[in-house]
């Protein structure tokens, strides 16, 4: 069975006290696509994801995930999603394998151990499987975190700033993982503040600014919103390095300084 839209959001608003965080968000995500919610800190990305993942209630507006309304059928939503939040949600005291088995048991799945071993293999964590997570590197933790979100193959995945705080190597690992997921048909909504990340991973990009989606489309469509490229003359201010070089001068041309004086 297919649902026409994996995620449908209309007129979503949310404020904390008198601070308006979401001012009417509209968004539609087709099944099996990767959509990046791009925005600076405080744009409302995490709030949007938390409402969609049933952690927060919206003040008004509608949101449905995999055909389930987040307000009236949160249990249905929870059974169809997984959330990999901004802060890595792994148990430091347990081993990597135990973390995966924990999620499998909580999802009432048979053969938790087999599932855990498959995911460990897929995420290159076999050797670390029986080590406590406290000994893992940042990239390994994030990989385990994402792997925990995949237990039970939920059709819709939320990744909230999946690469924030990771080193470039780990970032590339996460990118590879997300591409694999997209290839397997999972719907992914990821938030990011990095333009290149959105460019690299997303089929469509939605730009969230001051609580509203101000632009949405493929990368090519968004480029069309810009005026055609023009050649501009930009005056270049000298850097401190230029100034220094001009004063002390290279040893081979001492006279030139004299002439500029």
């Amino acid at each position, binding site marked *: 069975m297919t649902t026409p839209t994996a995620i449908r959001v209309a007129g979503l608003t949310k404020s904390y006290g008198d601070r308006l965080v979401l001012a009417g968000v509209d968004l539609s995500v087709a099944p099996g696509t990767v959509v990046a919610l791009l925005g600076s800190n405080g744009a409302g990305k995490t709030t949007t994801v938390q409402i969609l993942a049933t952690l927060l209630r919206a003040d008004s507006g509608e949101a449905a995930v995999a055909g389930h309304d987040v307000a009236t059928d949160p249990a249905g939503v929870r059974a169809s999603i997984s959330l990999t939040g901004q802060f890595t949600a792994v148990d430091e005291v347990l081993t990597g394998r135990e973390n995966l088995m924990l999620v499998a048991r*909580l999802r*009432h799945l048979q053969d938790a151990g087999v599932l855990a071993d498959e995911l460990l293999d897929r995420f290159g964590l076999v050797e670390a499987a029986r080590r406590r997570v406290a000994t893992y590197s940042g990239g390994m933790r994030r990989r385990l975190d994402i792997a*925990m979100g995949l237990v039970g193959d939920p059709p819709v995945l939320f990744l909230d700033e999946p690469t924030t705080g990771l080193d470039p190597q780990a970032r590339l690992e996460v990118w590879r993982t997300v591409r694999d997921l997209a290839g397997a048909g999972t719907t992914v909504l990821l938030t990011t503040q990095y333009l290149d990340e959105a460019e690299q991973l997303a089929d469509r990009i939605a730009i969230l600014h001051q609580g509203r989606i101000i632009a949405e489309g493929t990368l090519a469509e968004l480029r069309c919103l810009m005026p055609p490229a023009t050649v501009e003359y930009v005056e270049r201010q000298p850097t401190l390095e230029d100034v220094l070089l001009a004063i002390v001068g290279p040893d081979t041309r001492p006279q030139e300084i004299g002439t500029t004086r």
Partner: protein
Amino acid sequence: MSVGSEAKTPVSGNLAHDTAVLLQRSLRHVLRSPDTIVTTAVTPIAMLLLFVYVFGGALKAVDGSYVDYLLPGILLITIASGIAYTAFRLFTDVSGGIVDRLRSMPIGRSALLWGHVLTSLVANLASLVLVVLVALAMGFRSGAGVLAWLAVAGLLALVTLALTWIAVIPGLTAKSADGVSGFSYPLIFLPFVSSAFVPTAGMPGPVRWFAQHQPVTSIVNTIRDLYAGIPVGDQGWIALAWCFGVLVVAYALAMGTYRRKFG
């Protein structure tokens, strides 16, 4: 995999099953840092040694063996210090990302809390056994039968449950790891102003009134009578009433806090 397929996982959360899974998880935490059980028992054992071997000789007001007299109060102090770890373990989950992961999954809403509460019961029981063993080595003797021992265990379990639900509240609301265990100090101190260390009869008026009417005295007296193998009387009912009363109020407040913060 078909695009946009429905979830294969069942929608309904089963509170008992999910609680069991999370109980197993946090018991693993306790097993991997067994020092928490030992640390919980160290202070009460030190008090036991100090009061029996240092102050005990000067305490003439107590008839019979002082270690027999002292043990019930020491057991309550053990529980009061043990629940600080429950608050700390819960705080760790709440301040990290784990609570959000669990809340976005189709599991029983209060399974996380019940997992921690039952873990507290098991961990405190282990610490209590440790303290009783030390007391036995120090000469503690009881004429209690199996039923009386079971009654003591039941009452201590009830005290643990009541105090654990109190501990859940700072575990959910604390702002820092340092602030999370502060609530337990008054609870550890409470037995000092009761019949736990010396009889209340020798205390000055207002202090005596407080000591005689606060919950520790009735609980300590009940356990003492059970260990001595003599009828418990009204003290037992007062002790039970205190335990259930605190349990109900703390449970309601803790669940209310959880619902308010984590819906």
